[in-house]
């Protein structure tokens, strides 16, 4: 019998121990599962998907021009295959109606809900047989026009940071329960007076397969700012806000329909903002629905900071469960002559929801009201539903690179009439970190009402649209949908711009100094606010 060897096993044991510890430390698995980006905002299924389902919460279906927000559903097929499916119109009273739909490849189809049912309010449920198809809403009412997103999935939580019940404004909340079982929801409002849940909205029961529209103004009367939170105790719903303003007391005038945000996030991107030289009122509303106070920065990304300088971020401290607004036009911090876009960033990673409103009294060819929920995610593929609705005088597509590092290469494709073609000026266009590219689609999409747009890039970008309608006069921010599978949560957004010393030619008048002694717009007292009184540090 051979002599037994001791050393090899001892050596092996030591190696295994050392190796195990090393690998354990270097490959330690995350303890929590990652947040799925496609749960953060409505998103389109990829072409390989067996189907898509879209939930359009509510709109008027009276068939009458006096309907508050007569709803038309727009279905855009960006895929190479014909899509079939069905659209179910669910009225607030009466029986639902099912309509078959068929959308050819690279084309778009619209359905007026009032053609299917006649009721004060009606929801639409669109079930389609494939992916790369998007569904959105177009509303028309006495107050104006609006575009709104349909939801790609129901949710237990819905957040609306913006809203107003001031004099001349109506704020309605539409709740759609497409499921067979009833849902029970709590609706909480946060105003300048504080946060509250009216008794009638506590345990509000929504039967299965029903839509219900709540007039917030009847409960929360005459508040300049109303942030709304819908939380379902049981079941899931789709919630949508319908805001109208009649221009009374010098305020904006128009119709804004917004699908709520389903989740809070650390970063919200607004690739488009008020056009340069515009007198429109632009307000960013941030809701902190969590249980931890949040500190939020609103970064204004100026398109050409080398010329016009950079803007000191607005800094907000938002207690848990409360909301705050920043009126970007209330001071001269932002150079009026520069195009810009916005990033709302929660500095500690606390989840918040950001929404932006642009409103203007109709004057000349400009005016209207639009609410836009920020994009909490970036993606390499985006689908823009609308091409060029009737009466549009200007259609701007904004593509921003929200990352802190790395260029992105972007291509824009226009779909219509059964085919797709890349926009010649937007093929493999490079966008630097923190920068954006504006694409004027007005000419390209002229008289191509059936068109839709897709944006593809090698790295995630965020996309936004702004349309200026002259007939009627209004502002529209059509929804853009990221494609499932191409989405990514931006970990660290592009940092606030800081003008370098090379920007010495910057005109002095572009810098602004706020009164440091001024109260931080007293969030406690007004809830509308407010940037910390930060002195401008814009470089000279």
């Amino acid at each position, binding site marked *: 019998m051979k002599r037994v060897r*001791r050393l090899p096993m001892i050596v092996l044991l030591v190696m295994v121990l050392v190796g*195990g510890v090393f690998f354990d430390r270097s490959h330690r*698995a995350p303890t929590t*599962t990652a947040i799925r980006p496609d749960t953060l905002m409505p998103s389109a*299924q990829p072409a390989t998907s*067996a189907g898509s389902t879209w939930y359009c919460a509510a709109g008027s279906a009276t068939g009458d021009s006096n309907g508050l927000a007569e709803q038309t559903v727009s279905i855009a097929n960006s895929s190479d295959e014909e899509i079939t499916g069905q659209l179910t119109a669910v009225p607030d009273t009466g029986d639902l109606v099912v309509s078959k739909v068929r959308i050819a490849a690279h084309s778009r189809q619209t359905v007026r809900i009032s053609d299917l049912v006649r009721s004060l309010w009606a929801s639409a449920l669109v079930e389609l*047989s494939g992916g790369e198809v998007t569904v959105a809403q177009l509303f028309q009412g006495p107050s104006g026009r609006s575009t709104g997103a349909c939801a790609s999935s129901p949710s237990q939580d819905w957040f609306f940071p913006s809203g107003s019940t001031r004099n001349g404004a109506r704020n309605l909340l539409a709740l759609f329960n497409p499921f067979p079982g009833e849902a029970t929801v709590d609706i909480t409002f946060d105003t300048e007076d504080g946060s509250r849940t009216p008794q009638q909205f506590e345990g509000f029961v929504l039967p299965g397969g029903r839509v219900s529209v709540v007039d917030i103004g009847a409960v929360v009367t005459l508040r300049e700012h109303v942030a709304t939170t819908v939380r379902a105790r049981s079941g899931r719903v789709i919630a949508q806000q319908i805001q109208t303003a009649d221009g009374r007391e010098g305020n904006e005038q128009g119709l804004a329909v917004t699908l709520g945000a389903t989740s809070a996030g650390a970063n919200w991107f607004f690739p488009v903002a008020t056009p340069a030289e515009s007198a429109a009122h632009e307000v960013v509303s941030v809701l902190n629905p969590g249980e931890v106070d949040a500190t939020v920065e609103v970064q204004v990304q100026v398109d050409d900071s080398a010329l016009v300088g950079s803007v000191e971020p607005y800094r907000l401290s938002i207690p848990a469960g409360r909301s705050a607004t920043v009126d970007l036009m209330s001071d001269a911090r932002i150079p009026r002559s520069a195009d810009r876009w916005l990033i709302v960033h929660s500095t500690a990673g606390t989840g918040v929801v950001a929404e932006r409103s642009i409103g203007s009294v109709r004057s000349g060819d400009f005016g209207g009201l639009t609410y836009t929920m920020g994009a909490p995610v970036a993606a390499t593929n985006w689908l823009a539903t609308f091409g060029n609705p009737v009466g549009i005088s200007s259609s701007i597509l904004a593509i921003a690179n929200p990352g802190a590092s790395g260029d992105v290469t972007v291509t824009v494709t226009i779909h219509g009439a059964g085919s797709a073609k890349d926009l010649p000026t937007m093929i493999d266009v490079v966008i630097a970190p923190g920068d954006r590219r504006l694409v004027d689609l007005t000419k390209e999409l002229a008289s191509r009402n059936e068109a839709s747009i897709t944006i593809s890039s090698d790295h995630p970008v965020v996309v936004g649209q702004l349309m200026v309608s002259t007939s009627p006069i209004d502002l529209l921010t059509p929804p853009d949908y990221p494609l499932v599978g191409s989405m990514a949560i931006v970990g660290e957004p592009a940092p606030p711009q800081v003008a370098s010393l090379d920007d010495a030619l910057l005109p002095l008048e572009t810098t602004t100094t706020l009164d440091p002694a001024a109260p931080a717009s007293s969030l406690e007292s007004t809830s509308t606010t407010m940037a910390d009184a930060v002195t401008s540090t814009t470089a000279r």
Partner: protein
Amino acid sequence: MTVEEPAIEPVGPEPTGAPDVGADLIVAEQVADEQADDSPIVGDVVGDDVLAGDVVVDDLVADEEIVEDQGAPPVVVVMVTHNPGWWFEETLASFEHQDYPNISVLVIDAASSDPIALRDRVAAVSPSAHLRRLDANPGFASAANEALHAVQGASFLLLCHDDVRLDSGVVRILVEEAFRSNAGVVGPKVVEWSDPTRLLSVGMGADRYGQPAPYVERGDLDQEQFDSVRDVFYVQGAVTLVRADLFEALGGFDAEITFHGEDLDLGWRAHVAGARVIAAPSARVAHLEALGERRPVDDRRRLQARHRLRVRTVASSGPTRIRTTPVAAFYGVLEVLQSLLFGRFRHARDITSAWIWNFSHASSARRLRGRLRGIRQVDDGEVRAFQRRGNLRLAAFLRAQFGRSDGEDAQWDFVSNLRATRGTLTLTAWILIVFYLLIGSRELLFGTIPAIGDMPPMLGVGDMFSRWVSGYQSIGLGSTAASPTGFGLFALLGTMLLGAVGLLRHVLILGMLPLGVMAMWRLTRPIGSRRARVVATVAYLMIPVAESSLARGDWPGLVSFAAMPIVLAQLFGASGLTPFGSIGGSAGPGVHRRPLTHRIAAIAIVAALSATIAPAFLIVVVAASVVLVIGGVLAGQFRSSLRVLLAGIGGSVLAFALQLPWSFSAITDLRSTLGSSSTLGVASSVSSITRFAIGTGRPGVLGWALLVAGALPLLIGREWRLGWAVRCWALVIAGMAAAWALGQGWISGPLPSVSLLLVPAAIGLALAVGLGVAAFEVDLPDYHFGWRQLVSIAAAFSFVLAGLPALGAALSGRWHMPRGDFAQSLAFLDEQAATSSFRVLWLGDAGVLPLAGWGLEIPAVDDLGTGRSLAFATSSDGMPSVAEQWTGPVDAGLRSLASSLEVAGSGGTARLGALVAPMAVRYIVVPLAAAPEPYATRTSYQPDALLAMLDAQLDLDSVTVNPGLRVYRNAAWGPERALLPKETSVPAGGPEIADRLLPQVSGAPEVLTEPDGFAGWSGSIDSEGSTVYLSQSGGSNWSLTQNGQALERSDALGWASSFRSTSAGDAKLQFDTPFTRWLMVLGQVVLWSLVIWYLLRVRVRVDESSTLAGVAESGAATTVETTTASGSGPAGSPSATETGDALIASILGEEA
């Protein structure tokens, strides 16, 4: 209890001081005369061939014998012999040397193979003896009964074996005592042949069931401490003096009793006849007990069990039999179960065959009872005064002292044993282990074991048997794959427990703990050091593998805990390396030489039984054998590697064959057969794996202490201790590495669960700790004082520290197992199942599903966290049962179901309910932990994406039940057997979603609602021209007959069936099991029987050959033990301090 004067009257002519002076040997052959002239001496030759058993009538010889007496009553020695061995001359000589004056010797040759040689041997020593030859060997009793015909006129018969050696005064003393005590039967003191100072028996007691109870401890030193005459129940059959008239009145021995038990029979019936049975210890007889050497098989236990039953049946009166028979049957069942549990299959077979034999010989027993009734002098109540109370066998088991309780003061034996073994490490350790297990399991022992994880509730015995033989399984959407062997095994075990399947579940779950500990105890036996055995066994119990398996409902882990030590013992034995063999040194205690095929068969049986619950066990066995070889290579010992590999691989292959046809599924779909694995997200780091922290009760930093203790033999061990330590550590490293890789999600192939991988590591570590003790005892003294001594102290300290978490684990009384399961929360499922048939679709982490499922890969929703894997499964009509314990191959139906989930998971549909409605899925349940809240928070997880997907389905309605699970009601569901409207077109199947939809099934009425056997239903179909849709896989094996006519079957949706009804009337739906299925089941039974038969047969033969070899070598007492002591072990002659070992060995069925 000694009875001085039994109040009974002896039967027959009472011997007096002037006995009959002569004994006529009317049928005998005088050997010496025949030898002299090779012809009959006197009388007529009745036959032609003397050696063939023809007889010579020899009255003259008898007369001449009688003439020699001196007034003493004639005694005829009746010695039955068969192929006597070397001792025979000594036996004969002892008769010749008796100082009794009136004695004759009758040798009855029970068909010895060489009669002439026998005759010569008898003649050479005892020329006056008479020889009678029988044609065949009918056994001792029948052969001795020849004296009834051959002997007349004798006062006493001295019935003797042919392997006894009488002291010179034995016959005289016995006869004197017979007269003095007025006894009918008198027996001597029986001592060992080779060492007359060691006692074998001084009379025997028995209980009312015929269980013997010797009055003296076998092997006790004879210091004349038992040398007082006393009444006994019977005397050992080696030498028995019986009054001739009594023997004749009783009709001799019971002829049906061949060997073992005739002495009990004689004594019991003598008592019934009113005769005293006396032990006269002054008469000393040495007994070789060489019967086993002449018997072709060692059927001692079988015959004992059989004949004890026989004696009780014959000697008891009717009322007594009515009382005792059910009780005896009950004890028999218990004993069979205990034997099966401990792997003593031969013992179980013996008990079972004893009852069968007695049933088949009931008529002869009846005749004997009739004869006994005629001479009965006392009733059973008086006989019982001589019997021991209670059930000695049960009491002995409970007191852990088989064969030790004798004498009237048996109730003190336990105490005296305790005294004798006070301080014995072994006994103390085992008492503590049992106490620890009882304390730790107390709530589960006396409560309910929750149906979590892989521990679903059992079905009825009949149901399980039906499922086993049927060609249809209800898993998934129905399957025609071979049914699992487990159904048959559980049905068999349930039958043995008289249908108490709940008890069976308790035994099969909780029994794994003690079974594993005992298996570890046996595994460590060859080490030879009691301390090492105790430490290794305790270490195995301290490692929280079994505990965590229980806590997680991981039945495969528990089974592996119990079975893997047995398998490793066989692998170690197959290596033949010392101390598990004799290669490189001497074999340790308890080591048996077995052929390799026997090792393979043993591994196969254990592995096949384990694979019934843990199919992946077979893979682990192969892996363990490979790792052992690698360990040997690391240790520089290549020898026997091939044998180990052959044993491991061969055993697994044979086990695989034993599981046929079920295991055939593994060939086609291994992943599904093994099931999805989950670590519940806890065993993902080196830190947790190296502490075996895979359960809810984590051992903390002290969990590493055992690793320190286990390293000791690597540092101080030498020779085989070091070699095996290296192999053990190879097991530890390999097991932990595999478990870690699995926890990291690096290995996506079909793999065993993490607990299965960790069990070999646990055994390796525990054994290494034990080897450390052995090295401490043997190797350390050879070293000079230095770091090795300090390391030893540190190891000992670590071992103690490692025990602290284990102590804490026992506090809960249920090993951290949840206190409830989903049954209560989901009770409404079972209630609804009473009115309609439907399926429940279970989704979630494979580790928390209360049934076996199939893996599901849907990138959008299957990220459940590290170590978790998404799985789906279905249960029929409510909560899952053992019917859903095993998965099967993924067939078309399952593919369709999985595809539906994938479509929904990827966002392709919001109407999952409609997709699964044709599958009769009424509810979808997503467990968020292994048990509902608040019982299992540690195993909980949050499958947000999965829930979001389900929440988004328009036809699923969320039902609030318990925070620990999510339940969705399918608004579009249809029953399993739905009656569809006329003209319904059922798609035959296809790749598109539309090909899987059957909208008409939603809300359709259920038909054929009356169960008609397993996989059969009947009822009326009142709607002419309608379609019966059956949501079961099985294809053409389903048949629907209506009004006696078979309806045409069509494929539906690619996996289901539909039948077009042509008229109204009664209908019957049935699954037709193919004949081949019956053949396969029969083949499986035959295969199992063959392997078990081979296993037992070889074991018996090898053991017997070893035994006989031992006898031949020593020329002394027979012994079962064929082992030699280990170089370091304490084996050797018995000592007081080893009593504990003996007790434990007796409990565990070890051959001491």
